[in-house]
């Protein structure tokens, strides 16, 4: 038996769908599509996010992502990135669903351009509408437990608090609030945004959350494929450490070798 499966026997389950990998990757900002696909393969992820945008009718840019990513191989999660109102987010979510791949959406409503922090009120409004329309809503939010609880009450399939601002790579700035959210919610908690390197991923998973969604940390690494592997191990390490239960912290040293049997 695979050691990893034995050590972490339970899959990530969102809206009844099982994922063996607890890592979700974004598909933006890679230097080339070829590098993106190799990084996604290397990460072991089973779910990747995509954005909805106008087709460039003059074809000066790359073709759509479906030319590069097989939706049979990776579960595509359309997002509402770039939306600043509930109305826009609902419009983008509907367009994403109309592509005919799934009725899942990563709901993201931004409230501030500098920090890209979520507009909590608009996120709640949009979540309510989308849940009523049958969407499986995975809601990006800040690390506020009150908002997280409300998103769960509205019927979101997963709540996704940030580790730190989108694209910042600042890592997990508020482990306490992330732990609090995880302990209070029954739906999956996926930390979305802010992870910068593998140790950030590990520390985040050690808080007991169900998974991590990241993009820039992999896409903007010097070597995205290698970083994707590092993130895979980082997420697994953090998950296993959480399940294993860490030793208590002590203010004094305790020897690891016997204190008896020493020579005269």
């Amino acid at each position, binding site marked *: 038996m695979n050691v990893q499966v034995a050590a972490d026997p339970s899959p990530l389950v969102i809206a009844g769908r099982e994922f063996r990998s607890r890592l979700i990757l974004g*598909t933006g900002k890679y230097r080339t599509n070829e590098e993106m696909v190799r990084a996604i393969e290397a990460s072991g992820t089973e779910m990747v996010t995509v954005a909805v945008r106008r087709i460039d009718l003059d074809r000066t840019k790359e073709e759509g992502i479906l030319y590069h990513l097989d939706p049979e191989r990776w579960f595509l999660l359309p997002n509402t990135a770039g939306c600043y109102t509930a109305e826009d987010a609902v419009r983008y979510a509907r367009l994403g669903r109309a592509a005919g791949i799934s009725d899942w959406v990563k709901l993201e409503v931004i409230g501030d351009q500098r920090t890209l922090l979520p507009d909590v009120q608009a996120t709640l409004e949009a979540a309510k509408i989308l849940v009523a329309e049958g969407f499986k809503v995975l809601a990006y939010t800040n690390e506020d437990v009150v908002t997280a609880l409300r998103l769960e009450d509205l019927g979101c399939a997963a709540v996704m608090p940030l580790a730190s601002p989108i694209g910042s790579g600042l890592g997990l700035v508020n482990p306490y609030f992330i732990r609090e959210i995880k302990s209070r919610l029954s739906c999956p908690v996926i930390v979305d945004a802010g992870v910068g390197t593998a140790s950030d991923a590990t520390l985040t998973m050690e808080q007991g959350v169900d998974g991590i969604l990241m993009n820039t940390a992999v896409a903007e690494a010097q070597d995205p494929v290698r970083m994707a592997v590092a993130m895979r191990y980082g997420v697994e390490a953090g998950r296993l450490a959480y399940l294993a239960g860490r030793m208590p912290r002590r203010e004094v040293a305790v020897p690891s070798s016997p204190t008896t049997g020493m020579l005269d």
Partner: protein
Amino acid sequence: MTTMIPVTINGDAREVAAGSTVRAVLDSLGLHPRLVVVEHNREILDREDYDNTEVQAGDTLELVHFVGGG
């Protein structure tokens, strides 16, 4: 001679032949219907309706697809 009518596609003023269906517009742009989502005057159009929806003068079409994003 074909009569052309003004429409807005992805924010740009364009002209299409009068009587064109949405399907014909996609074909003229070289777009594969399966990889495109069409919003016609702010209403999302089912793929089955591309063939029987005629574009009128002044209509607005948004043609979108999936791109890389986080």
